[in-house]
Each structure stands twice: as C-alpha cells, then as structure tokens.
C-alpha cells in the first residue's frame, strides 16, 4: 500500500481549494448566499483539521463539507419560509454530487452509487467514513455536528442501506 500523504499546513490546503469551493457554492446558492456558506465551510474544515490523520482525499473531503453546508442553507430557508433560489432545481437529484476526480477507487465509486438515495447527512457520514476512512471527529466537524452524531448518522445510513438491500 502506498504511504498516506502528510497533512499539509492549513494555509496550503485552503489556498489550493478555496476557489473550487467558492464556485461550487456560488453555483448552488448564488453568489450572495455563497459568501456565508464559504466561510462556514472552511470554519468547519478548520475545526476538524487537526483530527485528520493524513492528507489524502482532502479535495473530496472539503467538497463534501461544502455540499452539506449548502444543504443546511437550503433547509434553513425552507423552514423559515423564504423563497428558494432559482439555482436550486427541483427533483430528487438537486444535491447530487458533482463529478469528483479522485484517483480511481472502487470502494468510493461503489459507495457513491449505493448511497444515492440516503438522506444527505447519512450519506455524507457513510461516504466519509467508509470511502475516505476519516475519523468520526473529523466527520462530525465536517457535518457541523458532534463525533457521536456522526457515528450515529453513519450507522443509521448503513442500517438503511441493509434494509434496502433486503427488500430488493
């Protein structure tokens, strides 16, 4: 097995990914609302950063955080009865993942596909845990919740996947 990449100083990670994260958020939320979401995304990443054990898959990790922040922003608006930005298309795949150019990794591709219909938080927890092998502390921070909540979301997601497999 190849050695894992060392975790770079946060500045280097931030400088490498900030533009792509900003573009993703602007696409989903519009530029105006992307600003708050951008800040929230990198604050979550910064909180979780020391818990990461290596520097592999950082891009996929931060894009997952960004998608979750976008989902949260969307939910908040829905519950406060505000109109939802025109950029959010209707349909079940509004939040489907952007194509992520990772090194070919069967486990990841498999999970991406299998977890398609899970609720966003459970899906993110399952993918980050089982495809990226991140510790629950880092996943919790990425989801804006706790380590325990991340563990629960991942196991709820796995249970849901099992149930679905049994019924099909």
């Amino acid at each position: 097995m190849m050695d894992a990449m060392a975790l770079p100083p946060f500045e280097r990670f931030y400088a490498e990914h900030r533009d792509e994260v900003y573009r993703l958020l602007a696409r989903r939320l519009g530029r105006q609302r992307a600003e708050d979401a951008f800040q929230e995304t990198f604050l979550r990443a910064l909180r979780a950063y020391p818990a990461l054990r290596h520097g592999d898959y950082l891009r996929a990790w931060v894009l997952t955080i960004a998608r979750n922040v976008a989902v949260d922003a969307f939910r908040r608006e829905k519950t406060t009865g505000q109109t939802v930005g025109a950029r959010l298309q209707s349909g079940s795949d509004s939040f489907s993942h952007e194509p992520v150019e990772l090194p070919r990794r069967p486990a990841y591709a498999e999970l991406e596909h299998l977890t398609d219909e899970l609720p966003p938080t459970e899906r993110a927890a399952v993918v980050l845990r089982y495809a990226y092998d991140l510790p629950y502390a880092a996943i919790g921070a990425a989801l804006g919740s706790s380590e325990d909540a991340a563990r629960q979301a991942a196991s709820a997601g796995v249970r849901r996947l099992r149930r679905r497999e049994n019924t099909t």
Partner: protein
Amino acid sequence: MTVPTDLDRRFRDAADREGLVDVAYDLADSPVGELLLAVTDRGLCRIAYRPDDALDELAGDFGVRVLRVPHRVDQARRELDEYFEGRRREFDLDLDLTPVGAFNREALRELARVPYGQVTTYGALAARVGHPKAARAIGGAMNRNPIPIVLPCHRVVGANGKLVGYAGGLDRKELLLKLEGAMLDTLFP
C-alpha cells in the same frame, strides 16, 4: 471565478476570532529580503528568511492550523520597520520559544542581552551560559534560532572577528551589523 478578496479576509478574521488558528503569519518586506513573521497566542514564534519551508516547520512545531492572518503580526511588523529605519534598538515583543530545548533557550536568553551595535563571540556566550567549552553548541543554537533579528544572533561572531556563519546567509549578517553601526574592524583590529 475566484474567491473575492474581502470574503477571503473575512474568513481569515473569523477563524482567528474563533480561536481556531494555531499559528498566524504574514509576509513582510525588509532590507534583508522578504520575511515570514509568525505568532501564536503566546507571542512571536518565528521570523523566517525562507517562507515556504517555514510553513511546514510551524505546522510541526505548533500545530497544523497555520493560517495567514496579516493583522496578527502588526506589532512585530511595526517594530521591525522601526528597527530597519534605525529608529528602534530594542524590541518590545512577547516571544514563544516553546519548541526550543532547554540549552538552546538558555543560549537565546543570554543572546537577547547582547546590546544593539555590539558583538560577542560564540565562546563568550558559552561562558555566560556556564559552559565555557560549548562554543560549538552555541553555534548550533544560533543556527537554529527561530526568531533571528529580534533575537540578535547576527551579533555573535568568531573569536577572530570573522562573521563565521548565519542561517540567513553571511550577506544578511553583514548588512544587519552595518545597519546597527557595529564597527567590526575596530573591535577586532
């Protein structure tokens, strides 16, 4: 489409305000080239002549959350500007030397007492930390000084008055001594 400058700044400030930054740094221009200045909550922890390498060293010494937050180094930047303009002879900055071992820290503490515009030798400094034969170890401590200029290792020279060495290069050592008006020729005729 790139991140707007003010959004970038707001993120950096928010990260700092929330106490999520292990090391804050910025780059500063100076007559001895571009410097990286870095601070922790305890104080100034690094002045580096080679900014790129310094980020990794800082992450190893203080934690991976290394982030550029320019206003955090304002005081250090101001005092250095005054020093280079010849308006400041002593620095009034808190320092963070936590990663420095006991012997080196003692050496740096003695070094800090060498006055502006004067020089001492490795041997003399060794004697002052109570290890008169440890001139070579003092040289090592100076070579690994994390906060050059403020901790004035440029003021330490060989017994014969030769500049000997400087982690930032001998040109810089000479320039700093000239700036301070140190008269090497008269000290070691």
